[in-house]
């Protein structure tokens, strides 16, 4: 083993196998161990739509500093077997610098893999495992990868013990024996990384998924009631909250469909309890009518959309950002509302928390656009800063009620926000209505009422000071990358690489998509002559949105494509370099 190796800043490893091969277990254990010794990074998976089994690949990227996107290429691709590899080979880009590790007895290397020009390293995996009782091939794979990463024995043993303790000491011993075989098989290969990090301080680092961070942010924002209907890839948000809410005196109910979940959330919020639901594109489509109700009746509600490929059932297990249009334009009538998007796994916490705060403060609907990539990715991150947003819902004072009996729920105010009476408040009784109404809430078809209520609902959103969180603006220079959502990770890394090459690049990762912030954007773009818009949509939805809502300086171009192939930093770097040459 090499002892003079300098740790690379990034190592990417993919492990693939057919159903039951245990590729995801390898990824999980490898990532957990690496995070424990001090690596940052992400663990993502790709799998087919099978309920159980079916081919799958674990993709682990380890970095010395926090990162939130896949790298351009994988250094190591370990095939437990080759079955159905063509289904996701394109999601695992390899170069001539990559290593392909496979079983010597595993048959021919599929053409799609061989043509990458990567170095092929056959190892006698099945021959070695045959010598062990209850030997699991995937544990041999883990041993090989642990050797390549120089992961210390005690950390790896600890992870395995945690994972298999339930199955008994024998199972743990069997696993460890297979891991040892893997280590021995890889003994002649040079290590690709070292695990020499200062010991992370207890509590300073987290391993968390975007969906978990979303749930956490929602609770931190004050959500205490959730109505749920399962859908991939959003279900984990709901499942996590189902266990967490009772600890805060809140509750979650599973309901019959998405029409029920959005309306139950609206009902809970009408009752004064901050409420939400989480779904994906098909569910959001069903909810749009009722989101309009929340806007018109001014009932705060949050809907998290963990986006997947569309339209229709689309790509349920794979990522895309293509619900942007329905989230921004999908409500019938003129229905001003909020659309926000977290920019990374850890930002799911802040953005969801902020979304609850905004929905509550502005008494309207907020749609949070997460996506499958960050929702289901596990990330090793620094503990996010503890942020509090002070403002909450403006409610009719419980003690005062309304002495003259003339409470007007939809009173016209300068800010557009009017005090909301919560059921149980004496002399606050009113009927919340999706029908157009007078200030007191009585149904009205009068032009003046429609005009003033429309203005009020818009004014709430336009007059509000959104402060610094509308976007992350990083760096200087006359070239800007504008992006949103999980493509921020690749854009951020591309900007860093370009800066290292002497090219100044500004990154604007927008968190507040709707309402648009033209003044803030103009300020962020001062001195910029070229703008590249990066997004994971087939039609360039955000590019068109920007052109419709913003005045952008100089030349503007777009890098966009449909999922599931993640946009990688190298592509953005190349695009910008070609453009400015």
């Amino acid at each position, binding site marked *: 083993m090499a002892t003079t190796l300098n740790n690379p800043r990034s190592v990417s490893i993919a492990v693939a196998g057919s159903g039951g091969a245990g590729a995801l277990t390898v990824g999980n254990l490898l990532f957990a161990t690496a*995070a*424990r010794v001090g690596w940052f990074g992400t663990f993502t998976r790709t799998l087919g739509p099978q309920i159980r089994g079916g081919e799958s690949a674990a993709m682990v990227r380890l970095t010395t500093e926090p990162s939130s996107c896949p790298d351009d290429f994988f250094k190591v691709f370990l095939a437990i077997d080759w079955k159905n590899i063509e289904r996701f080979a394109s999601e695992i880009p390899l170069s001539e610098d990559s290593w392909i590790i496979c079983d010597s007895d595993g048959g021919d290397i599929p053409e799609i893999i061989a043509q990458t020009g990567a170095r092929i390293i056959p190892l006698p995996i099945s021959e070695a495992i045959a010598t062990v009782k209850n030997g699991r091939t995937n544990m041999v794979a883990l041993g090989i990868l642990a050797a390549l990463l120089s992961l210390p024995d005690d950390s790896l043993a600890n992870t395995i013990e945690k994972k298999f303790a339930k199955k008994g000491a024998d199972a743990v011993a069997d696993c460890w024996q297979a891991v040892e075989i893997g280590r021995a098989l890889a003994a002649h290969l040079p290590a690709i990384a070292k695990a020499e990090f200062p010991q*992370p301080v*207890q*509590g300073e*680092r*987290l*391993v968390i998924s975007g969906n*978990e961070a979303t749930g*956490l942010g929602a*609770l931190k924002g*004050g959500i*205490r*009631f959730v*109505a749920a209907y399962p859908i991939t890839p959003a279900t984990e948000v709901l499942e996590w909250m189902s266990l*967490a809410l*009772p*600890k*805060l*005196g*809140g*509750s979650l*109910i599973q*309901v*019959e469909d998405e*029409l*029920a979940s959005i*309306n*139950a*959330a*609206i*009902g*809970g*919020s*009408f*009752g*004064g*309890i901050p*409420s939400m639901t989480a779904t994906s594109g098909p569910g959001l489509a069903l909810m749009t009518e*009722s989101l309009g*109700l929340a806007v018109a*009746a001014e009932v705060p509600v949050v809907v998290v959309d963990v986006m997947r490929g569309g339209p229709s059932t689309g790509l349920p297990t794979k990522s895309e950002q293509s619900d942007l249009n329905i989230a921004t334009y999908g409500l019938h009538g003129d229905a001003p509302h909020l659309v926000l998007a977290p920019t990374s796994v850890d930002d799911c916490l802040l953005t969801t928390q902020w979304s609850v705060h905004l929905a509550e403060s502005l008494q309207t609907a907020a749609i949070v656009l997460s996506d499958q990539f960050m929702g289901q990715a596990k990330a*090793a991150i620094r*503990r996010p800063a503890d942020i509090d947003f002070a403002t909450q819902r403006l409610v009719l004072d419980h003690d005062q009620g309304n002495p003259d009996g003339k409470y007007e729920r939809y009173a016209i105010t300068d800010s557009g926000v009017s005090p909301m009476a919560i*059921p*149980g*408040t*004496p*002399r*606050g*009784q*009113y*009927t*919340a*209505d*999706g*029908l157009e109404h007078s200030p007191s*809430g*009585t*149904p009205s078809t009068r032009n003046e009422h429609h005009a003033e209520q429309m203005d009020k609902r818009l004014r709430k959103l336009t007059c509000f000071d959104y402060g610094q969180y509308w976007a992350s603006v990083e760096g200087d220079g006359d070239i800007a990358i504008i992006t949103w959502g999980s493509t921020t990770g690749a854009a951020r890394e591309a900007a860093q690489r370009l800066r290292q090459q002497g090219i100044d690049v500004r990154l604007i990762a927008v968190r507040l998509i709707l309402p648009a912030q033209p003044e803030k954007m103009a300020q962020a773009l001062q001195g910029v002559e070229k703008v590249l818009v990066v997004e994971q949509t087939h039609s360039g939805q955000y590019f068109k949105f920007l052109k419709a809502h913003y005045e952008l300086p100089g030349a503007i171009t777009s890098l966009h494509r449909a999922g599931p192939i993640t946009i990688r930093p190298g592509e953005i770097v190349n695009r910008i370099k070609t453009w400015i040459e």
Partner: protein
Amino acid sequence: MNTSIACPAALEAADYKSDLKPVWCAGCGDYSVLLALTKALASLSLRPEDVAVVSGIGCSSRLPAYTATYGFHGVHGRALPTATGLKTARPELTVICTGGDGDGFSIGGNHFVHACRRNIDITYIVMDNQVYGMTKGQASPTTDPLWDSALTPGGTGVSPFYPLVIALASGANFLARTFAGDPKGTATIIEEAISYPGFSFVQILSPCVTYRPDQKEWRHKVRKAPVEATSELGKAAKRLMLDDGFNTGILYKGRREAFKLTQNNGMKVEHDFISQFEI
């Protein structure tokens, strides 16, 4: 089951009515339902601010605004999920859901079945006039298959929906049928429905004078059910399956436990969730 605190000064039915003039046609059965509901609330001495009436869309769904309680007039067909969310989030409120046959059994049919299943402690009052009135006279799920309309000339040819049978099969805990022409009797039944634990469903035959003038005959057809309410599912099923739709009264009182409500409004509790993610 009503858990609200009784109001100090006795209120009368009129105190539960708002000043708003209903959009309903003169002679509409829904006026009587509004009267019956307010009578029931007064009789239960519920404080108006502790009651919420939730509805969807349709003539009868206009009812919440005509009460002096809290009200929610939502989208078409979704009153039950809205009421379910409200009751789950605020178990101490008395939640009543109102609407019509189109809203409840057609566009909202799925929610009806699942609300019965959930057996949450709310009362669902459906003013059944076997027609879509607000859109001016189309067939609803409870309409006779031969009833002629512009949208379904010669009739729908589709067998009607039997709300009480479906409700019983789906798990509702309290079933009754009343006639809007008997506001006093209706008030008594609504009162009992509100007080009874679990999901209470009251089908009120509420004639549409405009699109179903033939329903004037209902006054001669309705009769008090010749038997007392039963708690036996089999008996109730047989009775409802063979019923001609005009037997009124409480028809079933189940013994199912109501959906357990756990929300606690002392919500300021902090909990350290982040440590579970620490490395």
